[in-house]
Structures are given as structure tokens and as C-alpha cells.
């Protein structure tokens, strides 16, 4: 079956992190199975697209931040564009379990 095509090496992030010959950006790519030029795995296609987007965006922001994407000299971490965040958080359902508060009064609505 097509199993051999999709069989891609599963990288162990714990090891990948310490392979000095691989740049951090490549580490993340390999770990997230984002090697270009190969067919995507069937599962999580959407999610991976999103993640690839995520990286492309990062690359495009190059002129300003140059190669300092991984630089901890810059305290503020990387965030996606505001428009994207607005869209993503138009509903807080996905992180509802991260909050505890007053009992939800709107739930009955």
C-alpha cells in the first residue's frame, strides 16, 4: 500500500534540539514534518498548513528582525498578526477549560 510513501521519519524533539548541525528553524520544521517538496501526511493537513503559514509569515518579517527570530535579547515573543488573532479568538470556546470563574450565567441563553 501507499504506506511507504507516507512513512516519514518521526523526529524526537528531545534529540533534535541538541543536534548542533541543524539550525533551530530546521529542527522545528523536521519535527513538525514540514519538509517541502514531499507530500503531506493525510492527517492534520489543515493544521500543518496553518503552521507552515505561521513560518512563512515569520520569514517574511525578515527585513525588520533579520536573523534574530530566536534571539532572547528581544523580550516580546512572536505573535501572529492582530487580524489573525481577532479571528481566532472571536470565540473563546477552545480555551474555555483554561478559565475558572463565576458560574456561567449566559449558558442558559
Amino acid at each position: 500500500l501507499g504506506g511507504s510513501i507516507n512513512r516519514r521519519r518521526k523526529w524526537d524533539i528531545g534529540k533534535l534540539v541538541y543536534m548542533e548541525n541543524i539550525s533551530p528553524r530546521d529542527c522545528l520544521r523536521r519535527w513538525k514534518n514540514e519538509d517541502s517538496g514531499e507530500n503531506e501526511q493525510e492527517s492534520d493537513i489543515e493544521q500543518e498548513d496553518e503552521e507552515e503559514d505561521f513560518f512563512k509569515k515569520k520569514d517574511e518579517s525578515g527585513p525588520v528582525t533579520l536573523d534574530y527570530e530566536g534571539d532572547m535579547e528581544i523580550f516580546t515573543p512572536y505573535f501572529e498578526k492582530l487580524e489573525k488573532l481577532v479571528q481566532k479568538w472571536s470565540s473563546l470556546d477552545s480555551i474555555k477549560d483554561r478559565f475558572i470563574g463565576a458560574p456561567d450565567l449566559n449558558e442558559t441563553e
Partner: protein
Amino acid sequence: MSSKTPFVAFQGALNFRLRIVLATLSGKAVKIEKIRSNDLNPGLKDYEVSFLRLMESVTNGSVIEISYTGTTVIYRPGIIVGGSITHNCPPSKPVGYFVEPMLYLAPFSKKKFSIIFRGCTASHCDAGIEAIKWGLLPIMERFGVRECALHTLKRGSPPQGGGEVHLIVDSLIPQPVTMHNLNRLTISSIRGVAYSTRVSPSIVNRMIDSARKILKSANCEVNISADVWRGENSGKSPGWGITLVAADKKGWCVFSEEIGGAGDIPEDIGVKVAYHLLQEISISGAVCRNQLPLAIVYMIIGKEDIGRLRITKDQIDERFIHLLRDIKSIFGNEVYLKPVDEDDTGDLIAAVKGIGFTNTSKKIA
């Protein structure tokens, strides 16, 4: 020059402060080469030199050699002594840039740290006062550093600055406590501070209102306070900004911050920070991305015991990999990342064995 002590060599200006701090904690000499060697303005920047001067004044016996072009630095750390000093920050970086690395060193000093920093108190890409006070000091508390405080004596917005903050760390501990946190954060309250210097206080309220509007649907307590500075203590330039902190019942927290720049609208900044906070909450394990380096370093220099910290996949970014690599090259210690078994969130547990560091200036028993 004696070449007896081997250097740990680094290249580039990346993670400059962290590398110097780790070198100081480990007592190993470092050599950082090729600092912006291809830049139009090669070598160390004024703020980095200023940081090295600060390191020199909080340690005893440090030797810093800077090459003629400023592209190579050799740093041989002395012991951390602390004490009361005043540091004038250059206008190019705010006080947060200098306070942040001090947090790594302060608890392991001979004398208590009491440093007054003068200069700008905010910028777009460095730690703000509130971020340190509400975001980083609580992390230190988890590791047994209970008595630390950052007092804002004067605020000073960029570009002119004129602010003054006082960092006091009173707890001196032999080493950080081994810490385990295997739970994701569950936010019980959101606090915040919106400040302004030399501008109309209505800006503060506009930021608060817009941020509250976004966070309303989170359905938990939101409490953002206004902090308007006037007169003498408000520095030399107009400015404003907001910091939001989402905390759980045990005191773990996630934060986001932003300051207003030229042409920014207060509502926009409030909204932006609120969304950043939500995003940060969604990708945080036990700590948020800004707190991760501090937590991991404290775990590394802990007792010879295994500490555990839950992190999410999203938190493994380039910064994190650089951090772990730098730690390995200085301490020789690796962080083990193993998947969480109990649930299918895909989170990881960072298991760290401490190196058994002891505060050299502490008397034993």
C-alpha cells in the same frame, strides 16, 4: 593572557545577556566572537557594554576583555557579590533590559541586591516594569526566592526617559528549590495595569475599557487598574502602555504587554494586548514563553534532583532551542522532553536534572 582556562566559545550577538549570565552562574569563562561582524555598525552596542559594566559592578573579580573592534568579548566571571549600586541605563534600552538578567543572579549573591536603575522604563521589545513585577518575580517565588521587589520610583517613557526603578532582592538562597509543575494553568483571575505619563488620563481608561471588552467573554474576574503619573515623577516624555496578567490560584501566571507608540490609538493597544494574552494563555503550559528561560535556568542550577515542568508544543520555538543549546554548551546539561501520558493534549514534560550548583558565597551549614 593566560590560556589555561578554556573558554566556552559562542558566535554572534544572539542571547548575549543570557550567555553572560549563564557564564557567571557556572563560573566558566566565555568567549563571544563575531558580534555583528557583518553589520554596518560592527561590534557591541552601547547597551551591551553598559550591561557588561553592570555585571562588573555586581560581581567581584570579573575580567572583561573587549577586542579593538568590539566584535569579540572574553568574559571571565568572578563571584556574585551584589550590594547597593546605581546603574544609569543608556537611552537605547529601557531598565527592563538590565533588570531581567539580574533576576537570574540576585538570589545567589553574597550581599543583598539593591540596585537603582535610571533611564527609560518601557520600550516595544523589552521587559516592562509590570511584566517583571507581576510576571517574572512570581516565577522566582516558586523557586524559593520570596523576598524580591521592584519599586517604581519614577516612570520615564521613551525616548527621553527619566525614570527610576529600584530592584531589591532580599532572599539569598544556596540554590533554587526543585520544582514540579505538571499541570496546565487554569486561569482564575486577570489583573492588569494601564499607565500613562504626561498624557491625558483618559487614554488609560480607553485602554482599560477596550481590553475589558475583549476579556469579558473569558468569564472570569478582570481587574485592570489605572496608574496615572503626573509631575516630577513621570519622566521627561509622554507615553502610555498596558500590561495584563492572567493568574491561577497558586500564583502561576501568563502575561502580555504593549506600549503606545507614535500614532497608536489607545483602544487598539488595549485590544491587541488582550488578544495577545488570550493567545499566550492558549499556548502556555505551566508558564508562558517569557517566563520559560528563567524557569529552565533555575531548574538547571537546582539541586541534583529532577525537576519537572509542563510545556506545550507551541512553546518549543527557536528561542527555546537556542536556550537549551546555550545551557548545554555552558553547563553540559540536557533537558529531557517527554510526552505527557495522562491526556492527549500533546504537551511535553521538560525534565531537568539540576547541576547541584551552590551559592559560592554561602556558608555551608
